Every structure is written in C-alpha cells, then in structure tokens.
C-alpha cells in the first residue's frame, strides 16, 4: 500500500494527486477523493479567514495511523492525505483525501473513514476570524458521532 501524507501551506492539485493515485498499479479500478473547502459561514458567523496550526511530527504520525487502519479494513492500493495549515480564506481547499482501490466500494468506504477520523483525531486546530472577532473552534458533536459510527460497526466491513 502506497501512503502519502503531506501537511503544507501551499494549495494542492486534485488532478495531479488523482493521477498519481491511478498510477500506483495497473490494478487500480476506482479512485475516490474528498476535498474539503473553507465555508464562508460556519455556525452563522461570517468567516473572513481561517488560521490552522498542527503539531509537527505527531499530526503526520496520526494521519499515517488512520490511513493504515483504513487499509486494514478495506482493500486499499494507495492513499493520499494532504492538509493545509496557515492562513486560509473562504472557498479555499483545505484538505484532500484520495484513495485508490480495485473496486469502488472499498475506495468510498476507506476515503470516508479517513476524513471522518482526521476530523476527530488528528492534531489540527482552527482559529476563525469572524465579524465578531477571532475564536478557536471546538470539535463538532456531529463529527464525533460520525467517527463513533465506524466503531459501533467494527464487526462489519461497511459503515452503518
């Protein structure tokens, strides 16, 4: 399994990343990707910019762990996780998760698993600059529930 983890300030190129995933093996039949964008309205306060920080070393290690877990549960030929840090603006792409597999079911499930756990486990912190001033975000309950669903479902290979 080819695993690529990158944390960077620069933008990423979804086309290039998808191409690379498709080239790891002639067995790749399905590539799924998730791209997360900064939304302009988060919980109803106008967001003018977002600052992201991470824990260098630990964050990369956590992302590699999440990818490895996904590869244990589903058939994964290659996976790429890219997360941007630093200053971002509304509509900027912030995170990319791409998974290459033989079949689409595995690719979808593994991709969704990785982004769900990235949201609740990986050491990133977001500070929003809104009209009402700056504030550090707190973990969303909905994200915690979404990630917990995968555990409730450990016996089965599919998300409930």
């Amino acid at each position, binding site marked *: 399994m080819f695993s690529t983890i990158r944390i960077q300030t620069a933008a990423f190129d979804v086309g290039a990343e998808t191409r690379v995933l498709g080239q790891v093996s002639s067995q790749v039949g399905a590539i799924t990707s998730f791209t*997360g964008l900064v939304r302009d309205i988060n919980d109803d306060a106008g967001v003018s910019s977002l600052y*992201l*920080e*991470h*824990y260098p*070393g*630990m964050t990369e*290690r956590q992302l590699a762990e999440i990818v490895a877990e996904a590869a244990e549960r589903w058939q994964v030929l290659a996976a790429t996780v890219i*997360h941007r840090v630093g200053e971002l603006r509304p509509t900027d792409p*912030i*995170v990319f998760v791409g998974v290459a597999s033989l079949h689409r079911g595995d690719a979808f499930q593994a991709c969704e698993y990785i*982004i769900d756990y*990235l*949201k*609740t*486990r*990986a*050491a*990133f*912190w*977001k*500070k929003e600059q809104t009209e009402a001033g700056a504030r*550090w*975000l*707190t*973990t*969303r309950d909905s*994200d915690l529930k979404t990630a917990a669903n995968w555990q409730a479902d450990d016996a089965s290979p599919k998300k409930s």
Partner: protein
Amino acid sequence: MVKVIFFASLRENLGTAELQVAVPEPASVASLVTQLVAVYGDHWALELNRDNVLVAVNQALAERHQVIVAGDEVAFFPPVTGG
C-alpha cells in the same frame, strides 16, 4: 529536562509555546502540571485541568498518570478541529 509544549487556544491563554522543565524522578503528567502551577500560578491550573485538554507524551496521546522521564516531550492541547 522535559520539553513541554502548548498548542492553539492553550498556547494563547498561557502566553507560552514551549518550556524546558527539570522534573524529579518519579514524575507523571499530573505531577508536571502541579509543578507548573506552583511556578506560574492558579491560572495555569484552570487551563491545564480543563476536562477537554488533551496530553501527548512523545507524540502519543497519554493519560495524566503516565510516567515521564528526562528527554520526554509533553504536549498539552485543546480538542482537535481539523479537516
């Protein structure tokens, strides 16, 4: 010496990003917090003992009772909000 680092809101609230602390043996995360509060005041107790504050020792999540030794890296941070 133990390297102690703080992230995000915790770093801002404490006004501190990183410290080098000499710890006695045996020491734990909890005893380190007590030691920091003794030096920096009750404000640090409030911040470091919040229910949702997480700890990592050598970049792996850890409980408060985990033993720490010289050379370790101990990080305190709020819940994560990536993605």
